Structures are given as structure tokens and as C-alpha cells.
């Protein structure tokens, strides 16, 4: 019998809503177990954590998926032992033996938490006793260190049994997917938008991804790259979709009907307009982009203002104050860096004028967006119908 302890993250902040958050998370944990176990499993609430019990040997897959599920602070594979000091010590000795392997010396400590106040030992005393038993077994190869030891043995004394674990895998934390609503994330092949998506995932936003494919100006390589990125981002979600939107015609119409300095900005505008349309169909209430203030011309304050004036739903820019180097670091952490770095045809740079506008003139902006809106209305609806929807599995 394998046990996995799932410790939740920010839920304790939520007060009256806690139950709703917890149940959402529990359901998602259940879905993951359902997908990944070949045999049955059981989920239990056990004071502020979820306990998974399964006969399935392969719990590594479950642990890996759970560390990507937003809302989870940490995941600990554990063992359930009778409330008997000898038996508990014995198990601890086994775990230490495994960790010790062929090391000559290792520091350790035992940490006990008990919710069961009828247990005859106090937590600190129990830690000391078990610790002594362990040390007696290994003698000189072990020494006790209370601050940041190499190995911590955790013992949780429950009413009917004890859970013992030595390994902790940290999750992404935050809030469960969907508890903060539904947003549309615009993905490009760069470093930024995937990192923006990840951050919003940890805030509990359920995301539908959108990629604007500038075929025939670009080929399929960039599309394949985006699908790879979206698959990674999908592991931080719980069953989301990617829309691949054919954008070449729209770019063509825009480029033929505007001052070339405004091309790039107007492409962004058209993407936001499309996202608004999609949002109304799939009940999303925000758009997420990887904009960072000042990075490229379309990300100046004036240009952001120009875009924002044309959207019904808010545009969330989680990276607006983030330094590029931190974005790159995060992209490495979440597994999108090596995909983002693959060179691809960038339609935006192909269409880019020599001097793109940095501060949109609002008068011209109102005029040109009004004109283009008329031209593009039907085109946008048709484009939505022609878009490919790809499901992104979460494990």
C-alpha cells in the first residue's frame, strides 16, 4: 500500500471559501490519480491535507503530476505504520538506511507532529526517542543536526496510525485551477508568454490558449513549436485547449489598409479583438499576455493604452514589471526554455516597418480601428470557425 500526502498551499487564507477550494483541488487530484493508476486508489481528507492510498507501484508519475498542479504546496510519499514505537522506529531505520546508502556520514533529525493528543508521548519526546533508536542502529555514520539536516524524518501521529516520510517534493503552490476564473492566454513562440501563463496558473486561472498562425507567411515549424509549448503549459492546468488561429489573411487586410508604422500594433489589436470574440463564446473574462513594459515597441505605456481602449475584458500582464533575466530563469524552471529557444519564423518581424510607432496617436488610432473593425467583423467570425482546437492533457 502506497501513501501520498498532499499538502495544500494558500487555501488556509480563504476562510469561508476554503471548502470550495479544497474540494476543487481534491477533485483534480482524484482525476490525476484516475488517469495514472492502473488499480484503485482512495482519497481522504486528513486535516488540511489530502491523503492518497493506492496499491499501484508506480507513484512517481502521480507525484510528478501533482507537483505541477496549482494549489499544492508539497507532495510526500509516505508509509502508514501502527501506533507502536518499535514499529515506527523500525520503519524509520529502513528509510534512513536507504538514504544513507554508501555515504560514510550523514546528518539527520526526526520531527514529530501529533494531532492525536491521546498518544502517550509528547512530540519532542517522541522525536528524541525515535531519534535515539535510529542513532543506536547506525552509530557513527549518523549525527543529529536540528538546523537543515541532510535528512528529515517526518512522523505524523494520527488517531489510528502514523504516517512516516522522508522525501518532500515541492509543488508550484498557489490556488487551484479555475478557482480564479477563466482567461484566454495569447501564446507566441518566445520566452515571455509561457512564463506569463505559468504565473497565472499558480493564481488559479483556468486558461484557454490561443496562437495566431501567420500562414502562408510562416510555415508549420512555428505551429509545431507552439503546440510543444502549450503541452508543457497544459501540465500546469487541468484539461485546457489550444486554438490555432489562421491569421495570414487578417494580417494581409490590415497591412493593406493602414499606415505601415502601425502594422505591428494593429496586429496586436486584431489578436485582442479576436480573443474578445472567443471569450464571449467560451465564457472567459480576461486575456493574458507576456507583455513586459518597454521590451518592444508595442509594449510602451501609450501603446498599451491604445490596445486597452479597445477591449471589453481586461488584459492581464503578469510580467509587466519583470526583468528579462528573471523571465528566462523561470522559463528554465518550468520547462519551456529549451522549446522557446528554437528559432522560428516570426511573422511580426517580417511585417515590421522600419520605424514602428512607439506612442500611438489616439486620433489616428480611433479612426483606423473603426475602419478596420468594419472590414474585419465577418472575417474574425469566419476565422474563429476555421480555427483548430487542440486538447492539452494535464498528465
Amino acid at each position: 500500500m502506497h501513501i501520498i500526502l498532499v499538502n495544500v498551499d494558500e487555501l488556509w487564507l480563504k476562510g469561508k471559501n476554503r471548502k470550495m477550494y479544497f474540494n476543487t483541488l481534491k477533485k483534480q487530484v482524484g482525476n490525476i490519480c484516475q488517469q495514472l493508476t492502473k488499480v484503485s486508489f482512495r482519497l481522504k481528507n486528513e486535516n488540511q491535507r489530502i491523503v492518497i492510498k493506492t496499491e499501484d507501484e508506480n507513484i512517481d508519475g502521480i507525484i510528478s503530476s501533482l507537483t505541477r498542479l496549482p494549489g499544492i504546496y508539497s507532495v510526500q510519499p509516505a508509509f502508514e505504520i501502527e501506533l507502536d514505537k518499535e514499529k515506527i522506529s523500525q520503519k524509520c531505520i529502513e528509510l534512513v538506511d536507504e538514504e544513507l546508502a554508501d555515504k560514510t556520514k550523514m546528518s539527520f533529525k526526526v520531527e514529530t507532529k501529533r494531532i492525536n493528543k491521546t498518544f502517550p508521548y509528547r512530540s519532542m519526546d517522541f522525536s528524541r526517542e525515535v531519534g535515539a533508536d535510529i542513532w543506536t542502529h547506525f552509530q557513527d555514520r549518523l549525527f543529529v543536526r536540528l538546523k537543515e539536516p541532510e535528512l528529515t524524518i517526518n512522523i505524523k501521529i494520527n488517531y489510528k496510525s502514523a504516517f512516516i516520510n522522508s522525501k518532500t517534493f515541492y509543488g508550484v503552490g498557489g490556488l487551484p485551477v479555475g478557482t480564479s476564473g477563466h482567461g484566454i492566454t495569447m501564446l507566441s513562440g518566445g520566452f515571455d508568454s509561457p512564463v506569463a501563463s505559468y504565473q497565472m496558473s499558480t493564481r488559479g486561472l483556468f486558461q484557454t490558449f490561443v496562437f495566431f498562425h501567420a500562414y502562408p507567411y510562416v510555415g508549420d515549424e512555428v505551429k509545431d513549436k507552439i503546440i510543444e509549448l502549450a503541452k508543457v503549459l497544459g501540465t500546469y492546468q487541468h484539461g485546457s485547449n489550444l486554438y490555432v488561429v489562421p491569421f495570414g489573411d487578417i494580417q494581409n487586410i490590415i497591412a493593406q489598409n493602414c499606415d505601415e508604422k502601425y502594422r505591428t500594433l494593429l496586429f496586436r489589436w486584431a489578436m485582442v479583438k479576436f480573443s474578445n470574440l472567443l471569450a464571449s463564446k467560451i465564457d472567459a473574462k480576461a486575456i493574458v499576455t507576456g507583455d513586459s513594459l518597454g521590451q518592444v515597441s508595442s509594449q510602451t505605456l501609450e501603446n498599451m493604452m491604445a490596445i486597452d481602449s479597445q477591449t471589453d475584458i481586461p488584459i492581464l500582464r503578469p510580467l509587466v514589471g519583470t526583468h528579462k533575466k528573471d523571465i528566462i530563469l523561470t522559463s528554465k524552471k518550468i520547462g519551456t526554455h529549451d522549446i522557446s529557444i528554437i528559432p522560428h519564423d516570426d511573422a511580426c518581424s517580417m511585417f515590421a516597418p522600419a520605424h514602428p510607432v512607439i506612442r500611438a496617436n489616439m486620433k489616428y488610432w480611433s479612426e483606423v480601428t473603426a475602419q478596420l473593425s468594419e472590414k474585419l467583423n465577418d472575417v474574425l467570425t469566419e476565422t474563429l470557425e476555421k480555427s483548430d482546437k487542440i486538447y492539452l492533457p494535464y498528465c
Partner: protein
Amino acid sequence: MIYLDCAASNPIRENIVAQMSNAFLNDFANPHAAHRFGKECGKKIQKVRDSILNFFDLKNSHQLMFTGSASEANNFIIKQYLKTSGSILYCRGDHPSVYQVIDSIYPEERRAQFSLNQQGLLDQKNFEEKLNEIYPLDLVCLTWVNNQIGTELDLDYAIQTIKKFHPKAWIHVDGVQAIGKSDQHYSILKKIDSLTISAHKIRGPKGIGAVLFRDNSLFEPLVYGGGQEFKLRSGTLSYPLILGFGMAIEQISSVQELSINKNELIQKIKDISDRFEFPFYNGCSPIVAGFFHGVSSDILMRHLETKDIFISSSSACSSKIKGKSDLLELIGFDQSIHKFFFRLSYNEDFKKEDMALFIEKLNDVYNELKFLLK
């Protein structure tokens, strides 16, 4: 559909498919089996082997070995000199199954390259200089018709010149793009030592190629095993593919049978815009290569494909330098324009009406892309 990528693969003839299907169904025995059924299949293969040799009038001087592709056939010859010590002379403009092999398996001191001139033809002065410098010379690889730019090698000149300096050097000719596309007579082939050909370039099936070569008992096997193909390339032969190959050879159309005038095609394209440049020598091969100065040719290619027209562009965006080509670098074109390179290649089915339609659509695409051109 207007298919202008025949140099990559030439559409198979229908009658060949029909006969091959028949052969797959009925001539299924292993041609190397000892029973009568197998032997009959074996005889049929021998018949095709002979007919191909006869087509090139090489029956009395050369042998023919079937391979899975011309690349394999090139590899077979090139690998024969690993144990000797002389030089290998080749060109960076050759097909990768020639130059990549040589680059990969021979040390630098044994490799010597000759160059092409600005029109893509053999740089004769350079060629003679190299032949003079090298000693001893084991193998020379010549490309008869270049697959990327369609330029043709004057085989007579090349062979005479090589023999002048190195009468014993093995002369290998990659003839993949030349069969049916050159007006040089096949009798020249008696003077060379080996020739590689491919079926799907002459409207036969994919998956079968051959090397015709002078008997050489020193040749080592490409593939060991059951000992087929004179113990040089083991593996069960595919009679249907070989049959298809034989039929393709028999039905080869000559350059005279091409329906359009190459110069006319080039002029009509240039009339659309002077951004189209065709700097290579225009021989009779149905391969037209040039530059579209403005956007990288993969965009041109994709716009044409939305109109069901297929041309060739080598610009893959995942390469660090878009469209970078060893051949174009060799000829002297700056890397910045490599991405503008495109190629059209047609066959005898490309008629005047098709050309007219192609020009019309190309004109449309040009107008669609005009605003992007810098």
C-alpha cells in the same frame, strides 16, 4: 495542381503502377529461392538488369547493382577507397550523398575539391589546377546535371582532362538528374567507371536505384548477408520495384519531348518583376533556378501552395542561417541572399497552358506580396 518539383520527385507513370501492382500480387516469390517460382522471378530481374545496361550500351563493359536509392549507390562507390591512400576529388556543389559522405569519412589530407564558376558551371582552370596538384588520385566524383541549379557538366571535357593527368583514377558520375534531361549522348558513358541512377527521378517508383560500374574484384560489400547482388549488397530484391525501374528507363522522354521552351518560361517570370534573377547557365535540363529578391522563398512557396502550385525552396526556418547553401556559397553568392533561392523543375507533361496558368498565379502572388518587399 501545377507540380513544379520534378527534380525532387517525378510523378510515376500510370502504366508502371499497374504493372507493379500486378507484380506485387503475382510475382511474390523470393527471387533468390531455389524453386522454379523463385527462379522465374530471378530471371525477370536479370532481364531488367540487362535491359538497363543495354539502354546505356554498357552491357559488355559494366555490371549493374540495384540499391534502395541513388544515395545508397553513391555511398557504395565512395566508401571503396577507405583502405587506400590516394586523394578523392569532388565538389561542394555535388549532392549531399556525395560530398557529405566524403567529408564524413575521409580525412582532410585526402580530400580535394574543385569549384564552379559564377554561372554554376565547372571552373575549368581550377579543375585542371587541382588535377595537376594532387598525387595520387584514387577517385573523382562528377555530377552530370546539378540537382539544385540544373547546370550540366561537359563530360567529354572532364573525362579527357582527368585521364590526361590521372589515367588510373576511378571516374564516378552521379547521373541522377541527367537521365532524360541532357542532350549529351550516352555513348560517353563507356569512358567512365561508375554511374548512379534513380528510378523516381525518371517517373519510376521510389525505393530503387542502381549503380552501373566496371567490374572490380576489389570492391567490398555495402551490405553483408545472404550474398545477393554479387555479394556486394545483400537483401532480398524487390522485383516489382525493379520492374518499375526498367519500365521507366524504357519510357524515358528526351529533352526534345519537353513541351515548353525554358528560356520562354524564364523570360515570362522576369516580366512579372525584375526582382526575379536567373544567374545560372541555362542548359537544356528542365530545371530553372534563381532568386526572388524580396522575401525568403519559403514564403513564395507557401503562397503558391495555397493556389495548389508546388515549387522548391530550401529555406527551413529552423536552421540558424535561413536557406544557407554550400552550393551557393561555393559559387560566390553572399549568405544574405541564400534565402531568396528557389527552384522550378518540370517534365514533359507541363504544357503551354500550364505554363500560362502558372505565370498568371505567380503574378497574383507577386501582387499579394508586393507590400512586404523592402
